[in-house]
């Protein structure tokens, strides 16, 4: 059970049960749809940029505990960041979940709870879906989606 409890840590279960920033954002400046055709996980990410700052961020969708918790924690982490800061977080998170499980990874605070997916290679996509959607949203024109 030890690797299972690495995957389903209390903080992840909590974000799955009570996802933060889980709603639409009518005045979003950037939107993107994230979809994992393999498992059907689907989310819509809303960003509101005020100048260079991510002043608000929210999401909606359906998915497994890992994808939902990851999206929820990501929205918490991104709020108040600059665009460059958000992109840097994306890179750090991506590195963390793709580092082989026997190698050390940097401490990313709450986000580190998702490092447990490394022992479940098929679940890495669940953790990274929201982050890829964030990146897609930044690259879109106003209100555009990837679909």
């Amino acid at each position, binding site marked *: *059970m030890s*690797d*299972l409890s690495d*995957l*389903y840590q209390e903080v992840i*279960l909590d974000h799955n*049960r009570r996802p933060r920033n889980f709603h639409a954002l009518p005045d979003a400046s950037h939107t993107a749809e994230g979809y994992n055709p*393999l*498992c*059907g*996980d*689907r989310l819509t990410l809303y960003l509101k940029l005020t100048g260079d700052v991510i002043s608000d961020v929210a999401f909606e969708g*359906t*998915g*497994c*505990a*890992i994808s*939902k918790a990851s999206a929820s924690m990501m929205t918490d982490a991104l709020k108040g960041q600059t665009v460059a800061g958000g992109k840097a977080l994306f890179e750090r998170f991506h590195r963390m979940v793709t580092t082989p499980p026997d190698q050390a990874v940097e401490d990313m605070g709450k986000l580190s709870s998702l490092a447990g997916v490394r022992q*479940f290679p098929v*679940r890495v996509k*669940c953790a990274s879906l929201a982050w890829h959607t964030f990146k897609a949203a930044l690259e879109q024109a106003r209100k555009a989606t990837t679909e």
Partner: protein
Amino acid sequence: MIGTGIDVQRIRADFPILKRTVRGKPLVYLDNAATTQKPRAVLAAITSYYTDINANVHRGVHELSARATDAYEAARERVREFFNAASVREIVFTRNATEGINLVAYSFARPRLSPGDDVLISAMEHHSNIVPWQLACEATGATLTVAPIDDRGELILEAFDRLLTPRTRIAAITHMSNALGTVTPAREIVRLAHAKGVPVLIDASQAAYHMRVDVRALDCDFCVATGHKLYGPTGIGVLYAKEAHLEAMPPFLGGGDMIGSVTFARSTWNVLPYKFEAGTPHIAGAIGLGAALDYIDAIGLEAIAAHERDLVEYGTQVLQGIDGVRLIGTAREKASILSFVMDGVHPHDIGTIVDREGVAIRTGHHCAQPVMERFGIPGTARASLAMYNTRDELDVLGRALQKVRQVFA
């Protein structure tokens, strides 16, 4: 085993993979609707082909080529017998059921389709029995029509009948839903369609390893199945088609073996069924499939069906005993599939946790997204059963699901 006439332990001994462990736990393989495991007889037939008689078929005059051709054609005869087709000319080897459906969509349906025509499928089809028809409709301006299913997951026959129009060029319906386990009344479906002059393709991919699929009794025009769900190898499938249809249809793929003669001006086509088998076929696959059908018939489809019925009933009880579990697919005629959702837990999380207990189930949309949409769910967890499964294994699944409940308490 209680009340069923097969010796499951003896059967299990024939399947080498069932002895292995997964993560230190005995493998509990409940993903048979995705693919079944292979008995030693199938593995031996494949090895023996490559060890003793490997050569290309329908080619050389040499001894091995003749032996390989004999073995390949004996497999075709075995398939004919299994599905009770009238002639081996009606048995085309394909890569899988998907290729069989595509063959019919391209060579039979497309030339008959124009704007205003329609193709009729059902709401419980696998993507493989949706997308080829969508492509055919897009290319020809025809319309894809979908016969609805009810809340149990049964085809609504009256609606199917109503949707058969004078412009329906073909109906393509599954004999058994891979996502719900529903067994459809294929004979009645064919009867209704034929009453309106509509030819029917029956997708027997899921049905064929649970019940006898007799193409002459069904009177279907086309029937497809796949070897790897019949305890045979991957990469080999079967298309049955009435001879008159195959005679009238143009080839699907061009190449070697399917020709009568070739000049740069024009080519002529080989006789049936070779007209539809371009290129070197999956010889070992066909031979392995023949061995798989021998294995199934030695045990007996009726006995297998009785055993699996017992497992479905028992598994249903096990699942109903777990807090928050709801079965998806409760058709009165149902075989070998237990599709379910659990309150507050996504199917993928269920799949990951039970995998840690050595239990292999499928999670997600099962290549049947419209079915999931019909039931308003993103996906299900699906335990699917085969002749070698036991009640004990369903108890292991039940205990693994209790662990899921604990994690998500």
